[in-house]
């Protein structure tokens, strides 16, 4: 038990204490690149009243929801394939997907900027087969590009989480469903999705939170419509030096993430889907 003290101490010092201080800062008054008392709620008021924040918040939500939905939407069939369809290729595909998780974050962003650009592969390919004459301008520097890059970043993780959730499901369960008359879509609706509801929700929230807080992808791929609140927080901190504002915005974001999680968990509990115990 004592063995854990060094690690715990480190976490306290480098994670919890900073957060605490940061939280306190959100209630202080700003003074260029520094703070001072008196304590006030001004920072929160500024954060909530700023109309740009509202647009950015909306953008973040849209980006987050789209990214998370695509990740989970594609992740479920892939996990299903790995668990129930794959035969000899399962290990190879698992390895590939896990390996792709380790491709560098920045490199992915750069890769998509190249792919979606005016002279990028996608435009070149479309031009080569004659679908278009002029390069498509709209596929870069907007929400669409940000979502694509974020999906590229989070999909492998979601697949692994969903696969872990699907692994304990026995094939007999699916066969029982088929035996009782369920077609493919009914099997999903009545058996697989209810069982996977909790892991899917957790994966969804995880991706949503990280996508909405991302401040790098929007800077390179987002243009104006793809800017998120994460970028705002970063800039208000670095460029404007308004630390209470950055802190207040951050905690408002965190509060909304927490709310989302609570509401979702409550819903799951209501539907009795939050704690499904699978027999061996």
């Amino acid at each position, binding site marked *: 038990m004592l063995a854990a003290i060094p690690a715990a101490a480190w976490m306290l010092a480098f994670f919890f*204490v*900073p*957060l605490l201080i940061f939280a306190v800062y959100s209630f202080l008054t700003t003074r260029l690149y520094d703070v001072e008392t008196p304590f006030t709620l001004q920072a929160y008021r500024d954060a909530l009243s700023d109309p740009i924040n509202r647009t950015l918040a909306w953008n973040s939500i849209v980006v987050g929801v789209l990214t998370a939905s695509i990740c989970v939407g594609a992740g479920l069939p892939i996990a299903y394939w790995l668990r129930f369809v794959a035969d000899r290729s399962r290990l190879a595909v698992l390895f590939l997907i*896990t390996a792709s998780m380790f491709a560098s974050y920045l490199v992915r962003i750069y890769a998509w900027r190249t792919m979606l650009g005016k*002279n990028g592969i996608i435009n070149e390919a479309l031009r080569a087969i004659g679908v278009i004459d002029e390069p498509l301008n709209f596929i870069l520097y907007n929400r669409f590009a940000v979502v694509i890059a974020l999906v590229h970043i989070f999909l492998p993780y979601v697949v692994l989480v969903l696969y872990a959730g699907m692994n304990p499901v026995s094939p007999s369960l699916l066969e029982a469903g088929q035996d009782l008359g369920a077609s493919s879509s009914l099997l999903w609706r009545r058996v697989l999705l209810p069982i996977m509801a909790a892991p899917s929700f957790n994966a969804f929230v995880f991706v949503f939170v990280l996508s909405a*807080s991302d401040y790098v992808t929007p800077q390179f791929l987002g243009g104006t419509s793809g800017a998120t609140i994460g970028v705002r927080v970063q800039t208000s*901190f670095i460029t404007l030096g308004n630390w209470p504002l950055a802190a207040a915005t951050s905690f408002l974001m965190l509060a909304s993430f927490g709310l989302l999680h609570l509401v979702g968990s409550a819903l799951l509990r209501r539907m009795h889907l939050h704690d499904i115990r699978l027999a061996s």
Partner: protein
Amino acid sequence: MVSRQRSPFATAVVIASLLFLFVPLLVVVLFSFHSVGALTLPFRGFSLRWYREIWKSDEFRTSLVNSAVVAAATGAVTMVLGTLAAYALSATRSRLRAPLALLLFLPLTLPGLFVGLSLLVMFGRAGVSLSLWTVAGAHLVYVMPYYLLIAVATLQRLDVALEEAAADLGATRWVVFTKVTLPQVWPVLMGATFLAFALSFDEFVITFFVIGPESTLPLYIFSSLRRTVDPSINAISTLLLAITLALFALSFALTTRGGRDQALAVPVEGGRREQQ
């Protein structure tokens, strides 16, 4: 023999996703060997010129070294502190176990933006100047939960009977740990440490806030991206990809191979406490 389900739809999604995941990366790698500066087809021949160019840059070399140093430091400290903490988490039956686990795993749930910002604030308040040390300290917070996930799971699968037998034969707790437990789990722990290296090497989001005047490789890429499009970024990117993928492959080999050398527990009875 259980027959597998059939689903052309799922198979299509899998193929499409694998293409989606790998084609962009392969494009970057491909063009890092391009003999001309264009990032478009047709491909005009292989060349290592971009690699030679980046190697000439002092900035690049120092940031590469910095990343390695930080990753090594992070990995080493994580391994030591993390192994101790994992041991505590897997063996203890105290009521403090749940809050301890919470304390150690919570950083997983917080996006790097907030971790980085709050650390910057604290360092500023405490008058600590930003440097590679602050980066390493921050990386530890980020990496530790991942290390713990693997280490705790591995320790829990051990058969307690071996340790009890050793104790019965007169071994102290320290001896039991070094002569019985560690020999069984060290491959997996090494694998987890390589994972820690890889995570630290590629870390950007937190590093951006807590770094001083120096640069790490991801930071170098970031500032290159901000400048004009320079084909040598492909080379740097490919290098970074190669390094992290190599670390991952090592990690994978160690954690899967090492897992087989363990005396695995009889579930529930033989192993340590099952935990959520």
